């Protein structure tokens, strides 16, 4: 991928790498931490933890429902548990176990799904997690995280482990551009403003944060000042930040690598409607699966590229003017 290099973004490690490293590090001082994986530890990067702490790691095999069920038993006993698999297999294959054995009894388990979005490219739709956030959002009590880059994923992993209650975090396969260069704070439920602007706010998560920054540059060339808000926590959503963005810029675009149904954009739109209605446009997968191909080709073909975010921003800015006249 090349996204963001034109505006000077450097590529860092994949967010799954950052998660895997942070998890292994956490294992050194969290002596009760147990990690379970479903035969994909070399993909999710829980293998780093597994190599260092073989006694606290279990490969449950290719059996995701059982994976989540066993985690629930361990957690009910009192163990601190992290579970990882592909986002698609974890959330889709084990959804009833997540609902019945984890969410309903409110067990404190951390779930990490890798290979989210269409940026995985060549492997195709069967491996792409594009409905995982909607499913996780639908689980009462769950927090849902989608960090943008490696530095914020490291912090998100620590924050997730510190959090009381079930969490789902999604991490990506390829190297992502780094959007957090300087020191920054990462708090679950608190969105980070990465760029200010008065005309429109682009609210993004995951890889789409870098795309939003590129879009903001493109918009600046057309005289539109776009703010970019990293909504790394999709649930509980930062309603304060959304309301203040709506008040300040009067127009909102959301961008996520996920189906539009039930994703981050839907959550943002709900807050905007409730608190301070302004025009909103949502960028995401519109009721479709993607296909195999080069990641950037797919982002363009399925309208998730920076230019699509910029076009959506244009449209809400136009609608805003229409509303105010």
């Amino acid at each position, binding site marked *: 991928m090349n996204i963001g290099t034109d505006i000077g973004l450097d590529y860092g490690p994949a967010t799954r790498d950052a998660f895997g490293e942070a998890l292994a590090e956490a294992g050194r001082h969290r002596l009760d931490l147990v990690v379970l994986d479903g035969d994909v530890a070399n993909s999710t990067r829980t293998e780093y933890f597994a190599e260092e702490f073989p006694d606290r790691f279990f490969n449950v095999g290719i059996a995701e429902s*059982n994976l989540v069920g066993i985690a629930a038993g361990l957690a009910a006993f009192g163990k601190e548990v992290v579970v990882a698999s592909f986002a698609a297999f974890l959330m889709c294959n084990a959804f009833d176990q997540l609902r019945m054995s984890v969410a309903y009894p409110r067990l404190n388990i951390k779930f990490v799904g890798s290979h989210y979005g269409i940026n995985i490219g060549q492997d195709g739709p069967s491996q792409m997690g594009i409905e995982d956030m909607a499913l996780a959002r639908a689980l009462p009590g769950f927090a849902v995280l989608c960090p943008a880059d490696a530095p914020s994923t490291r912090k998100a992993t620590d924050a997730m482990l510190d959090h009381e209650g079930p969490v789902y975090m999604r991490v990506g396969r390829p190297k992502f551009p780094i959007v957090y260069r300087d020191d920054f704070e990462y708090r679950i439920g608190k969105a980070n403003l990465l760029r200010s602007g008065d005309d429109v706010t682009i609210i993004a998560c995951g890889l789409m944060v870098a795309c939003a920054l590129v879009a903001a540059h493109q918009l600046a060339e057309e005289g539109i000042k776009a703010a970019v808000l990293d909504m790394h926590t999709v649930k509980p959503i930062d309603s304060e930040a959304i309301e203040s963005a709506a008040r300040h810029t009067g127009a909102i675009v959301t961008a996520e690598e996920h189906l539009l149904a039930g994703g981050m954009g839907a959550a943002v739109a709900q807050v905007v409607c409730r608190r301070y209605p302004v025009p909103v446009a949502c960028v995401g997968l519109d009721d479709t699966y993607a296909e195999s191909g080069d990641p950037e080709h797919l982002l363009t073909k399925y309208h998730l590229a920076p230019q699509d975010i910029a076009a959506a921003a244009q449209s809400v800015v136009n609608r805003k003017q229409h509303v105010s006249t």
Partner: protein
Amino acid sequence: MQPSSPAQTQQRSADELRQISLNMSKQIIEITSEAGSGHPSSSLSAIDILTCLYLRPIMRYDPDRPEWPHRDRFVLSKGHAAPGLYVTMAHAGFFSQDLLPSLRKNDSPLEGHPNMRAVPGLESSAGSLGQGLSLGVGHALAGKMDHGDFHVYVMLGDGEVQEGQVWEAAMFAASHKLDNLTAIIDHNGYQQTNAVGKVMPALYPLPPKWQAFGWHVEEIDGHDISAILHTFEEPPETGGAPRMIIAHTLKGKGLSTFEEDAKSRKHGTAVKEDHVQAALDELQQQYQNQT
């Protein structure tokens, strides 16, 4: 009146099949290398069985009429072996071999995992393990309901059978006497991160488990063309039971480029461009040693 299938009219000899399997094995190495990703080792363990099913042919089908109702159905449950299936289907005439190098590329119907809406003749979309046996059971059940004369084949991975759904399907198939269903386990001994026996030792022994679930179980050498032909062409009387063929295979077909990874036989890793020729030579050598 029952239309006949042209693919059935002439049978290829075991020697011809060995030659075809060699050519297709080479193509698997080449197209996954060209794509830069894919699952060549998982495709190579399955290729001799695919060769016999599609190119003897054991299965009845008509590539010009992929929807022909009397066709036998093949469901690839271990969808990541798509390159092996695509190469085989191209040789069977479902599409041109010229399409093979487009594997995994932009706008190609040959996606990383099978998409039945993109390729005529594909009976299932796959890539999430554990689901194919249930699909096969559905086809077989429909066959029983409508007095169909076709047979259903499902190929599973040996790691894949850790999924609970596989055993749910197994129970149902035996309960409903689906003797028009044959499942094949590509028993190559490895899954994604390790050997099957390391990940889940209690999965072994496989045969008594399937017997206990009401299946007629046979074990074969999944790279011995004559043995494969014999197994499929002289089906035993099973008394109504579905058939399970546990095929002992080699993940990566014993090629050194895969064997150097003792843990998982380079699961999901394409051969690097500069190693391709060596792998092709080794396949050729294997072929000459065996003939």
